[in-house]
């Protein structure tokens, strides 16, 4: 590794998904010098994930043309793209921000970049599948729904033959359709909520997102073609197997979301794809002190103004970090953040291209802002239609692993609350250790908060979630890397204090 490979730029963008690509393209088109960092091997993020050697997402992927346009724009405007690097720390200094990077693996890397220093920072780190524990979910063959889809999109690999997809939300339908089209036998899609089928068709268009409706209808048609049973108000309540998944229990849920034991059936399966919505990746934003709020789906998200500015001067956020709302919304927000950063740095906008001068730029911003409001309404309707079932903890057993890293069972969390008096997720974490492992609570944080709420009766506040979610280091690093921090780039609070 060449040590101290430092890049400087006007604008640094973290995340090369729909939001980050749009943000970078917009800022670079205005003549700003932009660096984009992404942990993935290729740009595209979750939505436009594609395989080695492919130019972009597969034909038929929604918004594929948008990806190609954005991708080409980056090249044209000289955006520097640093792939395969994870930002593990973000700090502020007098004239901006410093990001500390490491390759996603530990072996020698020819083009390793260690730092990016920039006057403005746009965080577009997206999110990851949200999970609820279920007995047996730590067996190989149980995957995050998005993860199963990612393996398919990027490597054409389906990690099983008989698949059950379960959780809530329209994303399950997309995942199931993809797996079925790829040849897997999808034996059931279990949607924990009731009304999804109805709103999949009509109200989406009514909410002003016709493209979403078209996409949904296409997935629904794929499920019909492959005769995939779609079961509403049903959940996977147990996963059976010794060394890997052999079967799952499917149980209907009552109106409180509690399993109705009498309805339980066991079906053979070797892949279970679980997803309960998404959790935004806020690590960098929280470390930098951006203010947050609780979104309609119960996730902590960052607050932004109508130019995607966070409460920290010079720091912007776009895409899933401001609320889970899908790829179209992520692009709109990314473009808006690019426009805002351009205006804030006193650039004229796309005049160099002859594409877009001042007045039309403000018209575009206005159009994007109204699109973002529409997207927000759509997302709110979706969150309202797909809540986590209130009674879900009824399917937990005492020995069900809540924290996969530290192997903390449900019983230990109960003990922390009932016997040791923990009243909030942070204290539960201190006493029972969920969230103390390698993933730093990314996987179990949401469930731990819900379980704590269930046991104590106190709802989780944004403060409590934020305390649980605060990760001074966004990725595990070595002491050597930490030691290489110097005062100028260290975050204002030392991570180990």
């Amino acid at each position: 590794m060449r040590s101290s490979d430092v890049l400087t730029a006007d604008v640094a963008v973290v995340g090369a998904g729909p939001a980050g690509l749009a943000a970078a393209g917009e800022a670079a088109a205005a003549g700003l010098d932009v660096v984009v960092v992404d942990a993935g091997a290729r740009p595209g993020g979750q939505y436009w994930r594609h395989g080695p050697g492919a130019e972009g997402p597969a034909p038929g992927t929604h918004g594929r043309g948008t990806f190609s346009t954005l991708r080409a724009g980056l090249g044209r405007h000289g955006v520097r793209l640093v792939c395969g690097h994870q930002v593990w720390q973000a700090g502020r200094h007098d004239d901006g921000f410093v990001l500390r990077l490491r390759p996603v693996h530990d072996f020698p890397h020819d083009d390793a970049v260690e730092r990016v220093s920039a006057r403005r920072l746009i965080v577009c780190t997206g999110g990851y599948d949200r999970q609820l524990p279920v007995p047996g979910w730590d067996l190989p063959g149980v995957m995050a729904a998005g993860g199963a889809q990612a393996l398919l999109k990027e490597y054409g690999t389906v990690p099983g033959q008989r698949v059950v997809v379960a959780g809530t939300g329209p994303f399950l339908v997309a995942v199931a359709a993809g797996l079925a089209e790829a040849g897997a036998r999808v034996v059931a899609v279990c949607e924990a909520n009731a009304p999804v089928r109805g709103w999949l068709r009509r109200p989406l268009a009514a909410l002003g997102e016709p493209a979403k409706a078209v996409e949904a209808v296409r997935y629904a048609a794929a499920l019909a073609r492959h005769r995939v049973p779609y079961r509403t108000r049903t959940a996977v309540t147990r996963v059976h197997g010794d060394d890997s998944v052999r079967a799952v229990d499917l149980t209907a849920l009552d109106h409180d979301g509690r399993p109705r034991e009498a309805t339980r059936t066991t079906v053979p399966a070797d892949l279970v794809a679980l997803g309960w919505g998404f959790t935004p990746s806020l690590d960098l934003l929280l470390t930098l002190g951006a203010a947050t709020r609780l979104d309609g789906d119960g996730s902590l998200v960052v607050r932004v103004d109508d130019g995607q500015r966070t409460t920290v001067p010079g720091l912007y956020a776009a895409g899933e970090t401001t609320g889970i709302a899908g790829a179209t919304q992520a692009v709109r927000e990314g473009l808006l953040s690019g426009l805002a950063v351009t205006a804030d740095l006193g650039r004229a906008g796309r005049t160099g291209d002859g594409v877009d001068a001042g007045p039309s730029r403000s018209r575009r911003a206005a159009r994007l802002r109204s699109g973002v409001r529409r997207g927000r309404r759509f997302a709110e309707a979706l969150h309202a239609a797909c809540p986590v079932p209130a009674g879900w903890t009824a399917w937990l057993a005492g020995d069900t692993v809540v924290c996969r890293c530290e192997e903390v069972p449900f019983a230990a969390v109960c003990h922390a609350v009932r016997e040791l008096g923990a009243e909030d997720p942070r204290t539960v974490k201190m006493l029972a250790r969920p969230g103390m492992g390698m993933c730093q609570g990314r996987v179990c944080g949401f469930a731990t908060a819900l379980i704590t709420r269930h046991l104590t009766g106190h709802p989780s506040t944004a403060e409590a979630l934020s305390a649980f979610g605060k990760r001074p280091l966004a990725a595990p690093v070595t002491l050597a890397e930490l030691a290489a921090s110097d005062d100028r780039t260290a975050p204002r609070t030392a991570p180990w204090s």
Partner: protein
Amino acid sequence: MPHEPDDRTDAEVCRVHFGGRTLTAQPGLSVAAALVREGITSWRSTRRAGGPRGLFCGIGVCYDCLITVDGHPDQRACLVAVRDGMRLEDGRCPEDDRGTGPDDGVRPDAAVGSRETGHGGGSGDAVK
């Protein structure tokens, strides 16, 4: 652009060594994809219960898929691409009960190849 991803590799297929077997994989596949395609769904066991683990989140977030690659422990199989001649060893850890550790994400020192213990099962507790 010096840091553009480069998917090209000289080998048409990569030979990858795992658990006494030699697997072939297309260049560009992740280690996890290469293993899963061979029907291998777990490659480490957990520190406490010794349970088998493989892929879970698939996108680098959960650290369930840890594997030792060419002597480097705790690499995420879902993020690392295969290379010809790569040696994979499972992250099975010996009796290694180091008890509690930090939640600050600091890994044991010596990232590059000099850690002796074969520990690989979730180093959240492997302390500074």
